[in-house]
């Protein structure tokens, strides 16, 4: 019997329609755990660097993790992996919702798609019965609409469905995969689904997911449960509201948006409006949100309330989460929150990433205002009207064009990086907020921060806000506050981190940009990445772990939970080694596709005050700490230490890793 995992993957060849249930090697769990870890291994083995994002050979993998379907709170992530059309690197956007547990109850750990279907299909998985069904009647339907249509068609109200909308069908680079209240949004997974002509994947499962030592697992979960209750009742003092709790940012619960609206940049990541949160705007926003969020909801087996079921002024219900509440308002310079609720409904049905898409629309507006795009680009045709001139109408119009790839939208749909180069005429300088061709959050700050410098530059996630979390964003002003914070910090991987925090000052020598020192920064970032990689292997939501300060899951209880669930006897060092292996394999995969040190830098204008020499030193120190050479490639020594000698050989054969280079 297999524990925590089901031991079977589904292999779908879309070109022939062949479906196989393939037993997996139990050794894979010992070396790569599951989730992102085992998916990266499959991509490494089967997708050579010549494969382009829209080639038939690009694999699209939907993966569960070790904890989905178990009583572990908040184990509800699905990891979607593919070579991204935006970054040309191995992307792994994740969704919460209900899909992964259902797939494991159906008896599978992963669904692996290869090649392309000649016609529109959706995959229906019902325990042992798995079939590709015609989806021609679903073409053009919304991503949420499709989920319910499929449930009705199958007469399976309990089926969980992940679907794309029109944006995915049209291979927009910011197309998302929508599922229940969640979505896998970054880096164009929806476009790859659309390219393969998969409209949706529906699953219903009624089988058992087994645990090796279930009673012991539940004993460890008691501690997790107690901590969740404790933290929900005792928010962390002296930090911003949004960082004080657990769960993904509680944007549906909190109405106070002073911090986001005044510190994040409006427009195409341009302007900080330091006086936005006036009495009048506050009143409007609070009333609008309270009147629109009809219910606070969660993902599978999670006690938190990160999602909202919303209906704006009697409009249709849809579900929203997180920062998507404000992105369209801020990008369009619209002060009325109602606009965001209205346009996000349409955007969700189109299935687009609510972080990068509004930035693309704002970029188009900027180009128009600069005279680079002209009225001609905003003309109507026989099928649609010309672009309205008001801010809100303009954004709706641009969203329609992008999702439908009509007119200027066809160029914009490839994201800011590629659109800027296609448009030319100086548009390139308006691409000022991307890392590795991927749009970043609209944040423009003052003083370079060594931790964020590293996270922006180096992480395989590329979407920076999904990597931070374990370390406070700013130092505490008083020693009293610092002492109180470090006193109650069971999540720390090692006690010596306490001193780093105690010595961290707002100003002076021990402040940004020189403190945390390059060595400390490398250690702290390594810790955050390690925890993210564990989360992504077991598919626990980062909101209950790596993404928050003082979370219920951490490096000290994870090995116990994983051991009890799987039957492997894993200690902290063993677990760290596995996820380190996964991270290095992921990096090697990206290096093999051409990623080097030259690609590892934050947007130039991210901070006003930059320190080129110091930044190079921070990056070099981090590379050294990680066991990578000065070009950001894992060394043979490091790879061998992680039992990845075969990777070193491959990199050497390709001339990516050179003899004696360290």
């Amino acid at each position, binding site marked *: 019997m297999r524990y925590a995992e089901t031991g079977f993957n589904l292999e779908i060849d879309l070109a022939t329609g062949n479906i196989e249930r393939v037993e997996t090697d139990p050794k894979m769990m010992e070396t790569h755990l599951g989730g992102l870890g085992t998916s990266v291994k499959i991509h490494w083995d089967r997708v050579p660097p010549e494969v382009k994002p829209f080639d038939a050979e690009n694999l699209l993998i939907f993966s569960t993790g070790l904890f989905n379907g178990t009583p572990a709170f908040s184990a509800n992530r699905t990891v979607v992996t593919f070579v991204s059309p935006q970054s040309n690197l191995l992307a792994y956007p994740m969704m919460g919702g209900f899909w992964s547990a259902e797939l494991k109850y159906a008896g599978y750990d992963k669904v692996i798609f290869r090649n392309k279907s000649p016609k529109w299909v959706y995959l229906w998985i019902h325990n042992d019965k798995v079939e590709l069904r015609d989806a021609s009647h679903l073409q053009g339907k919304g991503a949420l609409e499709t989920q319910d249509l499929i449930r009705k068609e199958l007469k399976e109200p309990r089926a969980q469905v992940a679907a794309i909308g029109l944006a995915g069908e049209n291979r927009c680079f910011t197309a998302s995969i929508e599922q229940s209240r969640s979505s896998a949004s970054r880096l164009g997974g929806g476009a790859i689904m659309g390219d393969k002509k998969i409209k949706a994947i529906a699953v219903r499962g009624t089988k058992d*997911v087994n*645990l090796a030592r279930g009673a012991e697992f539940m004993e460890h979960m008691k501690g997790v449960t107690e901590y969740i209750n404790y933290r929900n009742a005792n928010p962390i003092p002296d930090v911003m509201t949004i960082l004080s709790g657990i769960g993904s940012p509680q944007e549906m619960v909190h109405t106070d948006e002073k911090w986001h609206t005044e510190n994040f940049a409006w427009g195409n990541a341009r302007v900080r409006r330091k006086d936005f949160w006036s009495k009048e705007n506050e009143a409007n926003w609070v009333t609008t949100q309270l009147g629109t969020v009809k219910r606070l909801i969660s993902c599978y087996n999670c006690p938190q309330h990160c999602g909202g079921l919303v209906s704006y002024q009697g409009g249709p219900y849809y579900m929203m989460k997180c920062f998507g509440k404000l992105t369209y308002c801020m990008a369009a310079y619209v002060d009325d929150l109602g606009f965001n609720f209205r346009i996000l409904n349409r955007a969700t049905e189109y299935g687009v990433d609510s972080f990068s898409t509004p930035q693309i629309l704002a970029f188009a507006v900027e180009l128009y205002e600069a005279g680079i795009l002209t009225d001609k680009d905003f003309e109507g045709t026989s099928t649609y009207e010309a672009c309205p001139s008001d801010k809100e109408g303009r954004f709706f119009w641009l969203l329609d064009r992008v999702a439908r790839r009509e007119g200027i939208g066809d160029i914009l749909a490839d994201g800011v990086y590629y659109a800027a180069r296609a448009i030319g005429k100086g548009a390139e300088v308006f691409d000022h907020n991307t890392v590795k061709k991927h749009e970043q959050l609209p944040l423009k700050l003052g003083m370079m921060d060594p931790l964020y410098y590293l996270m922006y530059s180096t992480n395989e996630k590329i979407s920076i806000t999904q990597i931070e979390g374990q370390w406070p964003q700013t130092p505490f002003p008083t020693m009293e506050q610092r002492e109180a914070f470090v006193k109650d910090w069971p999540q720390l991987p090692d006690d010596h981190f306490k001193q780093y925090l105690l010595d961290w000052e707002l100003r002076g020598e021990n402040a940004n940009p020189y403190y945390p020192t390059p060595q400390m920064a490398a250690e702290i970032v390594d810790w955050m990445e390690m925890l993210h990689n564990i989360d992504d292997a077991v598919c626990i939501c980062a909101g209950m772990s790596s993404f928050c300060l003082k979370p219920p899951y951490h490096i000290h209880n994870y090995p116990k939970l994983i051991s009890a669930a799987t039957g492997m006897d894993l200690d902290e060092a063993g677990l760290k080694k596995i996820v380190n292996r996964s991270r290095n394999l992921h990096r090697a995969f990206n290096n093999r596709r051409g990623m080097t040190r030259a690609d590892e830098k934050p947007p130039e204008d991210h901070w006003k005050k930059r320190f080129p020499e110091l930044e190079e030193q921070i990056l070099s120190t981090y590379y050294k700490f990680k066991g990578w050479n000065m070009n950001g490639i894992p060394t043979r020594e490091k790879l061998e230490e992680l039992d990845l000698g075969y990777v070193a050989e491959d990199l050497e054969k390709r001339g990516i890793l050179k003899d004696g280079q360290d």
Partner: protein
Amino acid sequence: MAKIKKKIKTIKIDADKCNGCRGCEIICSAFHANPQYSSNNPARSRIQVITNRLENKWLPVFAGEYAPAECMGRDKYVIDGKEYDECDFCRASCPSRDLFKEPDSGLPLKCDMCESDPPLEKPMCVQICLNDVLTYEEREEEVDEDVKLEDVEVGLESMVTKYGLQKVLDTVARMSQKD
């Protein structure tokens, strides 16, 4: 029939607080697994959260008595403008639907309030619901004395109703010969 004091166990369901996470379903299946907590499968759960997210419906329902036949008529409820499907509020394990049946054998499931030795302070679903949707209450009532069926009997009774006593006896006899 003699009167006896009976402990009435109630789970009060505040459906308005339900965030739809279905944690109750998982823990129910895990608690009733054999050995306990060895496996998880919400299809075996004796509580089911009936949801339709885009219609804003959230309804935890506990498995009640086994019903050998469908109802002669059906009810449809409209509450706060929301129309609930036929049978949504019903607790029965019945031929009209696949709810509250073991997915492999089809045998009926019934909530037993997690009766166990030593007894739990509260049923597991109540313990695990951190949003206070489920509240456990106990009171004593005087009731007629009744014979309580064991789990196996509940299952067998439904098999007898479905296939007839003789067929079940024959099958059991044949199976015991094989062993």
